[in-house]
């Protein structure tokens, strides 16, 4: 009986090719399409904890996918929602105590803080990678530890420059500058025209961290090297901070106090004409009943962050993964649910209903119509390929999590931007703080 209840793996062998010859697909394609499924344990019941949706469509489709799973497998699934920042401590406690939800959608380096408490999902992720065009590099970085998959990268909350095209043109620029030098000139020109930029410098977990890491990395600075030695106090960092101080002068007043929602509100109110954000600003304008907002939506454009002296895109976004806990009584049911949610039949509609807020972690899903049906969403669909992991370029784990949560880079940029500290002082202080966590 025990053997029967174990996972049921259907290989990619000839049996599949033979059985599928009936279909209208060419046998060759079918033979190459891997297949995998897990047989849920009898009487399995699952608990899932996910972050509370940012867009309604996400939750609706997610719940529809889960309901379809329950119908197909008979496995009852309870889904709890928590504010996105509350998931992290809950997941850690779940891992620590060894009971609680079977699957949690976590963030960033959560899986690296308790890798031994998670199910090995190498087989599942290898299968998904083979089937759906491979994982993005950043998905691999956030999903694997020592070549073993410890989580299933689920989605990336893509981030991009959001700007008013007419205001940029009025400032004398036909297109968004592709380099940091040109970008500074654009911001200066826009400030002169009374349509300034604004980037969050308060304790903004998403919007603040994203752009300050781009700022640091694009100039060649980073918090730690490959071995986890703190190297932030470098000439490259100083250059980045000097750039930040110049850029800050072009911002609308008040950005030091901005938390995550502030730039959305200021942009939609017309007080700023350039910021970095998820797709939410655009959709808020597009779906508004107010004709003025509709007009603004027409004028909104998106672009990738400019490339700095390092010569390649260096962007930070948010990534969320499915963590499957080894304390689950129903490992096969949990894995099957993860597989189910990642398969095209479920993932594609979910991506579409998420209206571009979440972007794919598997390359094949960049064909999803959401990225082409509205040309303005395209930039967000390309986000996953642009993303660099936040621990760049050291190991992920407790130290990288602590540094991000302690706003070390954000504080450094805010201090240097506002003139509260010189770039040298700010970089030295950041190094001191980071050494605390990367000590061993």
């Amino acid at each position, binding site marked *: 009986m025990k053997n029967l209840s174990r996972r049921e793996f259907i290989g990619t062998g000839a049996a599949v090719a033979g059985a599928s010859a009936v279909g209208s697909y060419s046998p060759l394609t079918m033979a190459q399409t891997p297949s995998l499924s897990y047989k849920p344990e009898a009487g399995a019941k699952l608990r899932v904890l996910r972050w509370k949706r940012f867009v309604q469509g996400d939750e609706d489709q997610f719940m529809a996918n889960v309901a379809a799973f329950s119908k197909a497998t008979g496995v009852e699934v309870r889904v709890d929602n928590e504010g996105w920042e509350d998931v992290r*401590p809950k997941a850690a*406690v779940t891992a620590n105590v060894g009971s609680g939800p079977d699957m949690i959608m976590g963030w960033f380096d959560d899986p690296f803080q308790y890798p031994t408490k998670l199910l090995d999902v190498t087989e599942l992720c290898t299968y998904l990678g083979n089937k759906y065009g491979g994982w993005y590099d950043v998905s691999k970085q956030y999903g694997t530890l020592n070549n073993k998959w410890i989580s299933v990268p689920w989605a990336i909350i893509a981030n991009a420059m959001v700007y008013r095209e007419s205001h940029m043109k009025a400032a004398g620029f036909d297109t968004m500058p592709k380099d940091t030098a040109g970008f500074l000139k654009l911001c200066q020109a826009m400030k002169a025209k009374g349509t300034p930029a604004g980037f969050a410098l308060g304790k903004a977990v998403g919007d603040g961290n994203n752009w300050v890491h781009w700022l640091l990395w694009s100039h060649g600075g980073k918090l730690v090297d490959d071995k986890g030695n703190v190297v932030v106090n470098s000439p490259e960092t100083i250059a980045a901070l000097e750039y930040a101080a110049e850029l800050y002068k072009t911002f609308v007043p008040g950005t030091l106090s901005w938390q995550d929602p502030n730039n959305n509100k200021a942009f939609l109110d017309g007080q700023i004409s350039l910021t970095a954000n998820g797709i939410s600003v655009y959709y808020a304008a597009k779906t508004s009943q107010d004709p003025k907002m509709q007009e603004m939506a027409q004028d909104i454009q998106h672009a990738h962050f400019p490339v700095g002296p390092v010569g390649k895109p260096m962007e930070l976004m948010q990534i969320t993964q499915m963590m499957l806990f080894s304390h689950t009584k129903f490992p096969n049911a949990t894995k099957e649910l993860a597989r189910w949610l990642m398969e095209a039949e479920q993932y594609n509609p979910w991506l579409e209903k998420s209206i571009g807020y979440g972007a794919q972690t598997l390359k094949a899903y960049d064909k999803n119509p959401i990225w082409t049906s509205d040309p303005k969403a395209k930039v967000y669909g390309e986000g996953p390929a642009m993303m660099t992991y936040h621990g760049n370029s050291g190991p992920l784990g407790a130290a990288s999590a602590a540094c991000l949560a302690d706003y070390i880079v954000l504080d450094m940029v805010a201090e240097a931007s506002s003139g509260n500290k010189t770039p040298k002082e700010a970089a030295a202080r950041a190094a001191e703080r980071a050494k605390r966590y990367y000590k061993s």
Partner: protein
Amino acid sequence: MSNLSLLERFQSNRHALGYAFMVPAALLLIGLLAYPLGLGTWLGFTDAKIGRPGEWIGLENFSYLLTDSVFLLSVFNTLFYTIVASIFKFLLGLWLALLLNKNLPFQSFFRAVVLLPWIVPTALSAIAFWWLYDSQFSVLSWTLVKLGLIDTYIDFLGEPWLARMSVIIANVWRGIPFVAISLLAGLQTISPSYYEAASIDGATPWQQFRYITMPLLTPIIAVVMTFSVLFTFTDFQLIYVLTRGGPLNATHLMATLAFQRAIPGGSMGEGAAIATMMVPLLLAAIMFSYFGLQRRAWQQGADK
């Protein structure tokens, strides 16, 4: 004696029975207060991470914190926040209590209204203040601009000192009712005959306040201010909603920093150490208000 069973002997023993009746309360206190406090203190001496039990590292967390510029700033912020806010809460609260103690029309209505800021959940009132202080949408700035008094919006939460004062004002607004209503209760226990006697003796209102109200109110003040200082010192929600400790960590209190490091940051040990370091400061504050304000001599109206 020998014909009594053990149970009967137990039931007839006053001491044993007394202890037995105390057991439930003791268990509650130990389980819900002493144990968590002890655990929190112990965690401060370990390098525990969230999701990973720590090992004993002695005073390392504490010695690091003493060199950590962000922590030292948070200690300064906490002391500044507590002292300034408590002084204002005391002065304004006492003033309000004295006003409410007079015979006003609609007396109970006013007394009820005064309690409102205290009743509204902090998170809600904090959001109201967040809008008031918003760098782009502040109605305060808007009004002042429309009146032509200023040209640009005030950066309430973006400039370190302004941010400190802004959060203090929000805290004072919220904390006054507690002080005012408690002191009002104290005022009503003072017998009117003292005031009658004093006015017959020709005492001025100030003298009445100085030599009757203050001495008799002091025990209440000591208790009320002890609690008020405790609430202020450990304030969390208000800061978390308004600034999360920004700008440039200028409003980070020890409580918010402990949370930031322990929960989102995962460094349980360090967060616990910060929380533990609040204890000596809290004790000092309590000692001061408790013993300092309860001196018998002053209470009895002596000058020294």
